[in-house]
């Protein structure tokens, strides 16, 4: 996937001396590094190695595809692989690699809920990121990290800023990104399954033609014209397999890339939940308003945003389960969950994904329309 970085991309700056906000800032700073450094690698290496250089790199190492914008990957790839092409795009010298090593360790600590999120610690981490960005000439990162350091300094001097809800909004955006990535990955899966099926059929066809060729050879020897004709057919079938396999692999690589990114965001959200950042920010501000659903009939079109909590309405089980964890809702909510599934299957008999927002509003796709399924009568 070609990384795309928005020029107006900005960091969520803390508005007060709040650990949750500093934690979001640090996470966001690493994500920004992944985005811009990934784009930097791609811009420098695509003209030399071609547009699929990242997937080729993974393929040569017999590993699943890499995610070019993963903040972990962009740091560890050059650090751990002396022959990595990414090294060609970076400054040389031990001092620089010590810097990467330090950043990789810091990323690891914060993404695994071990880092200190005081103002001083945040300032030190952002300072490291700033120095790194200056070395590689990552302009957006440099601008944003410098702004973040200024903000922390001002907060330490007692200055107050508005927009405490921004950190929470960033989390909501992340939740939405996870939901969207899941949605995209899910759509790709169907297409990939169809291609995989076509490939398997073509492989069967090659096997049948090879068998026919072998039998023919046994009967009439190598000189007969029929052998030549059968060989041509077998070669054509084999060529089709090569083409289908290539298409399938390209699609699969793209899907794995999306799934990698989805996992990265999910891990980030998990870290934020574990570090009580979400809780801390939600206590500061809760500005989101629920849509009035009193007059809305189940099955009617929903014009609000879809929720980020995803459930699967299973036609086979006639039950609901959490799409992320696979936990059946009836395990925690008993018959109420089963009854809700039955009720929703009347609205959407084909089942599928249901999106639930913070207020319990459930929506699902019917064709291209997002429809209102109802309000959940229990807390997820």
């Amino acid at each position, binding site marked *: 996937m070609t990384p795309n970085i928005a020029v107006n991309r900005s960091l969520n700056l803390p508005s007060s001396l709040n650990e949750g906000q500093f934690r979001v800032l640090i996470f966001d700073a690493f994500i920004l590094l992944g985005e811009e450094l990934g784009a930097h690698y791609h811009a420098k290496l695509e003209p030399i190695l071609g547009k699929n250089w990242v997937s080729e790199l993974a393929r040569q190492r017999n590993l699943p595809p890499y995610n070019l914008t993963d903040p972990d990957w962009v740091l560890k790839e050059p650090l751990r692989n002396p022959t990595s092409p990414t090294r060609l795009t970076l400054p040389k010298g031990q001092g620089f690699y010590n810097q990467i090593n330090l950043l990789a360790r810091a990323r690891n600590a914060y993404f695994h809920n071990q880092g200190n999120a005081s103002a001083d610690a945040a300032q030190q981490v952002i300072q490291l990121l700033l120095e790194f960005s200056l070395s590689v000439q990552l302009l957006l990162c440099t601008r944003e990290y410098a702004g973040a350091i200024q903000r922390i300094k001002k907060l330490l001097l007692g200055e107050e800023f508005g927009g405490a809800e921004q950190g929470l909004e960033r989390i909501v955006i992340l939740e939405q990104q996870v939901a969207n990535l899941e949605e995209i990955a899910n759509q790709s899966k169907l297409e990939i*399954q169809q291609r995989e099926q076509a490939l398997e059929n073509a492989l069967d066809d090659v096997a049948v033609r090879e068998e026919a060729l072998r039998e023919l050879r046994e009967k009439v020897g190598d000189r007969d014209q029929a052998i030549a004709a059968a060989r041509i057919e077998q070669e054509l079938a084999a060529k089709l397999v090569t083409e289908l396999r290539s298409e399938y692999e390209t699609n699969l690589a793209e899907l794995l890339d999306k799934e990698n990114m989805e996992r990265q965001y999910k891990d980030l959200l998990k870290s934020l939940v574990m570090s009580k950042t979400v809780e801390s920010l939600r206590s500061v501000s809760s500005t989101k308003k629920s849509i009035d659903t009193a007059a809305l009939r189940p099955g009617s079109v929903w014009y609000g945003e879809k929720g980020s909590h995803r459930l*699967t309405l299973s036609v086979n*089980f006639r039950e609901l389960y959490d799409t992320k964890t*696979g936990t059946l809702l009836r395990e925690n909510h008993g018959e109420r969950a089963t009854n809700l599934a039955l009720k929703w299957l009347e609205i959407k008999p084909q089942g599928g994904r249901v999106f639930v927002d913070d207020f319990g509003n459930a929506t699902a796709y019917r064709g291209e329309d997002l429809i209102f399924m109802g309000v959940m009568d229990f807390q997820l």
Partner: protein
Amino acid sequence: MTSEVLVGAIKIVYMGAVEIKATPIRGGEPIAAIQHLSFVTGPDGIALETAYLIFSNGDRDVRVIETGDTPSPYSRLGHGGRLGVYPLGKMHYCETRAMKLGDKNWSNLHRTTAREIEGWLGSNLNGFLSSLGLSKVITREELFGDEGRRRHELATSFESTNFMAPFAIFALTRPLPLLKGARR
């Protein structure tokens, strides 16, 4: 019979049975079948709606009927890696060929060993099999005197009415090896 089984890190929850029409592995027109359902879940986003089909013509197999958001490489089980279940006198048996990753994340069924399966399971294999009413894993030759080319394939047998046993073998030889990164 228990309605919930743990196969290493994979959990199987029995979800009931329904009568349906479906196509057996060997193909042809859809025919009547009893479909036992189970939910096979595990780490790494594994959530597979799985069915054990007992057809009116005597054919049986275990297959995934819905992969939902289950990621690669497990989503491949959505249309591959069905487990055939075959009659053996008054009992039934199935082979224990396992899904293993090959080049480029492409997985297929390959021969395995009891030791390898035990490694994925993380506990004593025979103890696990016996707790679910399954025989030890032995070759087809040992199981029913097979003299054909497949005589060295491993298999296990169970009472024909034991519908959790095939689900357990499915989990043991399909999602579990993929989860453990088994390669051919």
